[in-house]
């Protein structure tokens, strides 16, 4: 017994590097067998899966956009019929928002946040694995339904009464509503993990003012998720209840109200934009600091701006509803708050420009994408100030002007920083650098393609072309600008093909990256590329918000953690003063089985409400099995 206890309690304090590596690897690794892979709770393994899956859904969403652009290139084209077109724009929006944009940002956080904070795994790693499987099931469910010709066709925001039982019989909207439940469950779980990881698992010494800006952005985003996403879950649950068991939430004939849907949806839907945009600002900050070769300009101003944007984002939702006949005073309030949010966003942009101005910028691909972000996002912000004004919004509502505006905001504000982030962190994730030459081509094609595709839509919108029409008459005179937009979309598409080729080629033949190819300052660059299963052989001690620039020769570390069981350091909220040696759960297949049980329940529920009752049994069994101690050293502390 005493020998066993001694073995279980072996600490890293006096071990040499080779033995430390061997023992930590044995404790933290994901085994090679299929079961072991499916049981993995390593945040890097799950994060990589999340990133790849999100990009796969980007492909599907992008291809549906290309199909729509080809249809719209000429007046009265016959490539797609109205029904398929309705499904495609719904699938495009739904996929991009729920299966790509939010998950990809959380995916990067799942991979990077624990590394940036100097810990060995995310908080609640099994919940993390569970969230991935639920997300994957939701995505497969949506696209399998589309293949089976029951793809939703009511737009990504599924307005009632169109989406209600009277106007959308059949299963299409049920598929949409339950897909929401899948993706929100997974997003909410990841949000809680990121908050707790950031609050409790920061490396000792990492006080609040030393948290990397990307982590700040993900922390604020996670709070937005927690306070915004329940709204869409409440709404989609009410919708499916109206459709399946005869409730009347949105049925005016029985005291319900169709606008209640819009309020609930946009109470989620507007913060959603910032749930996508705020992580991108964190990526921009990381890239700008590294490539301008100086610490962030206005760290405090940047952090406070992110928090201000987070708060203000909850006061904007009615600007999506200006044409629904709400009281003018309410509209005026939401116009004012919509313009107000430009202020903290502007502060961030000026801080970044100041860092570039004051630094020695290195114009590698990641920075190019950030510069592209400035250009495109600022145009999107300016058209945003325009549509925040009720009279202009009333004119351009439901036209291509709005389509142009939000693609400038979302692609400019989120996808360009994301692509920069791919080039920036790819070496950490794979150990190899993406080709710089192809990266430059990638950037310029994306930048030109994007603007050629979307700028004409401003003009088309002002000329009166409505959204969500599958074709138009030649007499409208919209043909040439639509053709131009389609050409731009194809160029943008080619830029993504180039990225795919670059990723596949560089993953095996790229230049080896080493630990820190960009000479960056945050902790993820203190470990190997790709990181070992245990992330850091010894947990770093943080002295600065760019710790690697503060410690050029040696890295201060802490000792005393177990090497025989999964242990992490958990500390105080503000000072990150170490409090406990917390065990981190070992791999388990139960999160996957629980996700299957939950997924089966959601799927069954669109056919019979009793599925919820019967499904709760396997859900309960899998959850109990997941939590039940298995007698491992991690369980017995």
């Amino acid at each position, binding site marked *: 017994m005493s020998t066993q206890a001694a073995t279980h309690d072996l600490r890293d304090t006096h071990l040499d590097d080779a033995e430390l590596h061997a023992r930590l690897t044995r404790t933290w690794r994901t085994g090679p067998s299929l079961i072991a892979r499916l049981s993995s709770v390593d945040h890097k393994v799950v994060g990589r899966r999340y990133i790849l899956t999100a990009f796969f859904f980007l492909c599907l969403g992008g291809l549906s956009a290309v199909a729509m652009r080809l249809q719209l290139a000429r007046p009265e084209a016959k490539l797609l019929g109205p029904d398929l077109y309705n499904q495609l724009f719904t699938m495009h929006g739904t996929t991009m928002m729920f299966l790509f944009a939010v998950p990809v940002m959380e995916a990067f956080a799942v991979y990077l946040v624990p590394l940036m904070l100097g810990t060995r795994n995310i*908080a609640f790693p099994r919940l993390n694995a569970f969230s991935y499987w639920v997300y994957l099931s939701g995505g497969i469910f949506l696209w399998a339904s589309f293949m089976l010709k029951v793809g939703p066709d009511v737009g990504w925001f599924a307005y009632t009464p169109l989406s209600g039982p009277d106007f959308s019989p059949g299963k299409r909207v049920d598929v949409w509503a339950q897909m929401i439940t899948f993706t929100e469950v997974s997003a909410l779980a990841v949000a809680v*993990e990121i908050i707790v990881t950031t609050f409790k698992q920061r490396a000792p010494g990492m006080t609040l003012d030393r948290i990397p800006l990307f982590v700040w952005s993900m922390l604020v985003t996670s709070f937005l998720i927690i306070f915004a996403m329940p709204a869409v879950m409440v709404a989609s*649950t009410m919708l499916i209840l109206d459709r399946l068991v005869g409730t*009347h939430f949105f049925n005016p004939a*029985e005291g319900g*109200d169709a606008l209640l849907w819009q309020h609930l949806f946009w109470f989620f839907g507007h913060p959603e934009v910032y749930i996508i945009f705020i992580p991108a600002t964190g990526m921009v900050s990381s890239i700008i600091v590294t490539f301008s070769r100086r610490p962030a300009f206005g760290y405090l101003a940047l952090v406070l701006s992110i928090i201000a944007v987070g708060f203000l984002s909850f006061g904007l939702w009615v600007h999506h509803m200006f044409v629904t006949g709400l009281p003018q005073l309410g509209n005026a309030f939401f116009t004012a708050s919509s313009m107000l949010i430009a202020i903290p966003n502007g502060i961030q942009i000026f801080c970044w420009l100041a860092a570039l101005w004051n630094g020695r910028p290195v114009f590698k691909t990641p920075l190019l994408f950030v510069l592209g972000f400035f250009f495109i996002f600022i145009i999107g912000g300016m058209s945003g100030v325009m549509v925040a004004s009720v009279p202009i919004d009333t004119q351009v509502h439901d036209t291509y002007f709005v389509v142009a505006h939000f693609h400038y905001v979302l692609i400019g504000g989120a996808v360009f920083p994301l692509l920069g982030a791919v080039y920036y962190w790819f070496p950490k994730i794979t150990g190899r650098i993406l080709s710089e030459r192809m990266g430059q081509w990638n950037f310029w094609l994306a930048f030109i393609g994007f603007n050629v595709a979307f700028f004409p839509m401003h003009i088309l919108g002002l000329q009166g072309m409505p959204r969500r029409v599958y074709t138009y008459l030649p007499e409208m005179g919209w043909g040439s600008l639509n053709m131009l937009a389609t050409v731009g979309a194809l160029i943008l598409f080619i830029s993504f093909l180039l990225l795919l080729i670059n990723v596949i080629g560089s993953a095996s033949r790229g230049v080896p990256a080493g630990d820190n190819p960009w000479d960056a300052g945050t902790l993820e660059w203190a470990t190997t590329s790709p990181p070992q299963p245990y992330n850091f052989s010894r947990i770093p001690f943080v002295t600065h918000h760019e710790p690697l620039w503060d410690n050029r020769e040696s890295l201060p570390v*802490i000792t005393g953690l177990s090497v025989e069981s999964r242990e992490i*350091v*958990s500390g105080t909220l503000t000072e990150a003063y170490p409090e*406990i040696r917390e065990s981190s759960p070992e791999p388990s297949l139960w999160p996957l089985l629980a996700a299957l049980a939950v997924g089966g329940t959601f799927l069954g529920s669109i056919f019979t409400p009793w599925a919820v009752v019967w499904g709760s049994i396997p859900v309960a069994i899998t959850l109990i099995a997941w939590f039940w101690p298995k007698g491992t050293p991690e369980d017995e502390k």
Partner: protein
Amino acid sequence: MRPRPVQDVSELPTYGFGSTSPIWWGTLGFVALEGTGFALAIGAYLYLWQVNSQWPLSVASPNHWPGTVMLIVLLASIWPNLLAERAARAEDLPNTRLWLIVMSAIGVLAVAIRGWEFAHMNIRWDSNAYGSIVWFILGLHATHLITDLGDTIVLAVLMFTRHVTGKRYSDVSDNAFYWYFVVASWVPLWALLYGVPRL
């Protein structure tokens, strides 16, 4: 980069209670998001109340007694819940077992009261929007009663197995923490469901 040891954490404990424990923070996160769900459901109720000239819609006001009994039982349960939490923090196994069993029994009672309550709302979910939102709110809260009951029973059983360790006591105290949320959320819901129809 060469590591330079500056601090040793080998003497730190392996578990903690309350805000020391990451699980407590995770619980707080779920309380925040579920609390948002309740707040939005309350908002939807008030919205529907505002857009209708008559409330409740063409039915009698609900019988408040089952809900009031629920309120009394839940408020009274704070005391044994506090004792369960204290016993867990003191790592007092007999009392932890005792109060977990008591809390499980209270959970069963609360679920039974909820069934009684549904039957005395004087309305079905599919009668009109008033019925829909009443059932929605009661159902949402019932889900919380049931999940916390499940959690409490599992922990009670665990405390009779060989898996009783320091961390289990921490889990018991986090479970008690969650129950305060289940109780606290019923107060505004009770006032809403039985007060607004009588305004």
